[in-house]
């Protein structure tokens, strides 16, 4: 039984790794396509039918480029930086419950790598150390633009983490658990948290944009002021890791948002499939991924609509707008939850 358990986990980990990387790769393709469509262009269409092989071509290009380390750069930190960025983006996917339990080969298989009872805190912990990859990479490059990018990244991430955490507390209060699986289970059917917490969702979404360094908050890497920001000096697959980690982070943060606000793998009418848990699990996973893709689409849609913030506007929005809104929202939610449970 124990060996089966470990084998299930191993298969799940490898699958998750491949899926994360594959989705990240095709996010780059879809991002370029969407940018093209919004700008009335065609987009990449040369590699394969509709340019479907473009990510592979890009990957090969990345590997073929010269791996350059600038003079006076801190060699070790320069190498470690992109690694940390990639690691922190990928590791969060371990705690995400991807679907209801499968019943195969006479045993129950959980579609969650690590069932830890403080899942959401773990996610926040990983997000909070995610900034180190960018900071170390930017500082080790020994380039003023990279340093600017690194400093902007750190101050931006710290500011937006607070509002993000406070808006997530409301969800914890409603579902009464830090366990992501329990949070998902509490949103059965169409009983999603977004109906109760639209304000928290908006705050969380804005913070997620900032935490993944996506436009309009892509100040750490803004191409036209900082010529790439923290990855100015990077080339070859190290740059690839940085760019890739952004897309993986986008995928994972979309998954977390889908869990916290859109019911994860819950979908209306799931009670009808109670007798067939495997079908329920498969449809659940598909629904979950559909939600994730929709959120990723919104991420990209926003990127190609809204221009970049100025840095003081970014700080103003984070500290003076989002945190007060999140705090007031948390207070109101706390009172409502207390009344609901008749604690007064």
């Amino acid at each position, binding site marked *: 039984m124990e060996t089966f358990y470990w084998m299930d986990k191993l298969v799940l980990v490898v699958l998750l790794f491949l899926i994360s990387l594959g989705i990240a790769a095709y996010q780059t393709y879809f991002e370029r396509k969407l940018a093209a469509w919004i700008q009335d262009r065609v987009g990449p269409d040369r590699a394969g039918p509709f340019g479907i092989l473009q990510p592979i071509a890009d990957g090969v290009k990345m590997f073929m480029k010269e791996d350059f380390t600038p003079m006076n750069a801190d060699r070790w*930190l320069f190498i470690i930086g992109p690694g940390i960025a990639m690691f922190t983006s990928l590791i969060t996917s371990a705690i995400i419950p991807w679907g209801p339990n499968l019943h195969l080969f006479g045993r129950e298989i959980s579609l969650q790598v690590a069932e*830890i*009872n403080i899942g959401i*805190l773990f996610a926040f912990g990983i*997000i909070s150390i995610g900034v*180190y990859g960018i900071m170390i990479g930017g500082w080790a490059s020994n380039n003023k633009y990279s340093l600017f990018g690194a400093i902007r990244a750190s101050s931006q991430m710290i500011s937006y983490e607070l509002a993000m955490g406070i808006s997530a507390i409301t969800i914890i209060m409603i579902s009464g658990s830090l366990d992501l699986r329990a949070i998902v289970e509490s949103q059965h059917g169409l009983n999603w948290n977004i109906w109760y917490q639209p304000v928290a969702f908006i705050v969380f979404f804005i913070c997620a944009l900032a935490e993944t360094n996506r436009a309009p908050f892509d100040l750490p890497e803004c191409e036209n002021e900082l010529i790439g920001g923290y990855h100015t000096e990077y080339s070859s697959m190290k740059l690839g890791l940085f760019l890739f980690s952004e897309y993986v982070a986008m995928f994972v943060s979309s998954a977390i948002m889908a869990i916290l606000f859109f019911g994860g793998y819950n979908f209306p009418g799931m009670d009808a499939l109670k007798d067939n848990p495997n079908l329920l699990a498969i449809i659940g996973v598909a629904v979950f991924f559909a939600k994730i893709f929709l959120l990723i689409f919104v991420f990209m849609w926003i990127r190609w609509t809204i221009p970049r913030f100025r840095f003081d506007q970014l700080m103003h929005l984070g500290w003076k707008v989002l945190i007060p809104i999140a705090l007031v929202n948390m207070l109101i939610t706390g009172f409502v939850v207390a009344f609901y449970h008749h604690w007064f």
Partner: protein
Amino acid sequence: MIATILTQILGALTVAAALMVVISKHPVRSVLYLVVTFFFISGLYIMMNAQFLAIVNLIVYAGAIMVLFLFVLMLLNLNKESEPKTPTLSWIIASIAAGTLFVVFIAALKDIVLVSQPGDNVALSNIGLVKNLGNTLFTKYVVPFEISSILFISAMVGAILLAKREKQMID
């Protein structure tokens, strides 16, 4: 058994990383070793079944405070040339001071006998889990908890006041 060995390995790694904080010449590397130290300490918390503490340690110390440390260090000009020369005398004085402190610590900890009491086994008591920790904090230790929150608020007010005064002087 495995847990004990893991704990010991983690403890050794913690001490090694903490030593590297002091030994490494470059301040940025020191801070990064400090981050690594916090990771190992979080690992030790997990070994003691205190997952909440482990993660909060990561979020607060590794994720926020150390980022600010690094933030400040990155803004400093850390060229070898601009660094002031430390006279040999201050080296000697610093070594003596640190050595004395070390001796005091050793002397203080030498005679301590760790006695385990029934129900004191941290790994089994589940005191570190969120629910138990919250219950303890808001019942047994509610006064220290609230006082510390007042302390934090006063620190915040002080910081805001300092920032404000700067502005008035410009006017």
